[in-house]
């Protein structure tokens, strides 16, 4: 009986050590997204997905894609704690007069999720990024 108890305590302590070891790995969200290279690839997949969606591609008719891509990479880097400084306009100012609807926003979220999956970003990193981006809905839509 005592041996069984010891065995379980040992197992429990062992599990704690293993799990705290995992938790101590210094991985920021930025690193989980693959750093600058990973974020660049995510951005390229995302832009490709957007360009192929006829529901929303018209919103980018007057967009300079090179500048848009650079701002997006900066923004994702900053949001994920990569130490970059996003130089672009605020989300509110950047979308004035674009009449982004909820359907547009939903579609864009879908394409971002697809891009993150295409780059094999873990589900926890994906959800952590969505947690930071989802509240931007208020600033981006309907104005």
């Amino acid at each position: 009986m005592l041996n069984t108890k010891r065995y379980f305590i040992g197992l429990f302590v062992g599990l704690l050590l293993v799990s705290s070891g995992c938790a101590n790995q210094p991985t920021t969200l930025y690193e989980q997204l693959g750093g600058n290279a990973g974020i660049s690839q995510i951005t390229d997949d995302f832009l490709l997905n957007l360009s192929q969606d006829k529901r929303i591609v018209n919103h980018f008719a007057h967009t300079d894609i090179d500048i848009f891509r650079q701002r997006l990479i900066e923004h994702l880097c900053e949001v994920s704690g990569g130490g970059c400084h996003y130089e672009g306009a605020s989300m509110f100012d950047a979308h004035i007069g674009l009449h982004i609807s909820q359907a547009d926003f939903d579609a864009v979220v879908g394409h971002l999720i697809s891009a993150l999956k295409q780059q094999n970003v873990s589900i926890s990193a994906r959800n952590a990024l969505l947690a930071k981006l989802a509240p931007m809905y208020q600033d981006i839509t309907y104005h």
Partner: protein
Amino acid sequence: MFRNILIISLLIVASISQPVNADTSKVIATGGATTIEGAAGGGIVPWAVINGYASSDQWSVTAMSTQVSVDDFTLHAVGASLSIDNRFELSLAKQTFDLDTMGGKLGQDIIGIKYKLVGELLYSSLPQISLGMQYKRVDDFAIPQAVGARNDWGLDIYLAASKVYFDAIAGRNLVTNLTLRATKANQTGLLGFGTAADNDYHLQAEASIALLLTDNFAVGYEYKQKPNQLGFAKEDDWQDIFAAWFINKHLSLVGAYADLGSIAGFEQQNGWYLSIEGTL
């Protein structure tokens, strides 16, 4: 027969998914499942979410077939819904409740509407909040009347709040829902509405919690408080644990283990819940 036709048509709808896929925009699983009462939600609790995948300026239709088999009873529910603008939901459901041990059957039809008042499930710090109503009418009032029910129809009114918390537990997204319902229904309406002595509305709380283990697979728990009005037999609250698999945006399956408590004097009615849903 009707059920088989429905199931076959759901599978056909699911198999032609690709061309229609471009027309609706909501993220997978955000339409929820469909309750046995026809509204979008879990299995027994209506949520604030609007059924299907229609976002703004879009529409969506769903069809579902559900069976709940407990010790002495079997519930069949079929239903369909129309959703517009991720704002408004109209639903129809038909329930048949077989009294396997006693013999005979009960049934009711349910017409439901739901309107999103405020908030966005994924995007606002405020939960998404919707107001819903369900008009229910029993098929045959003989048994409900014999056990003391006052009316053969009733109107449920509910307010539901739903919110997704991203990256909540082990990096997974958590879906939470709280619903307050005013009802006169006995056993959700299958045994009629009110009693000779009591024609008041009762305010009941219902709650669901679900963890999305992947983007399209969730496990969760639901609790549904119910009035206990009829003198002939005790009525219990309902609860279930469930797993929901959103195979794609056109086909989903929900399996659950349900505890329906005491029904018409038969104690501890537990058993399996299985639901298939097609969405366009």
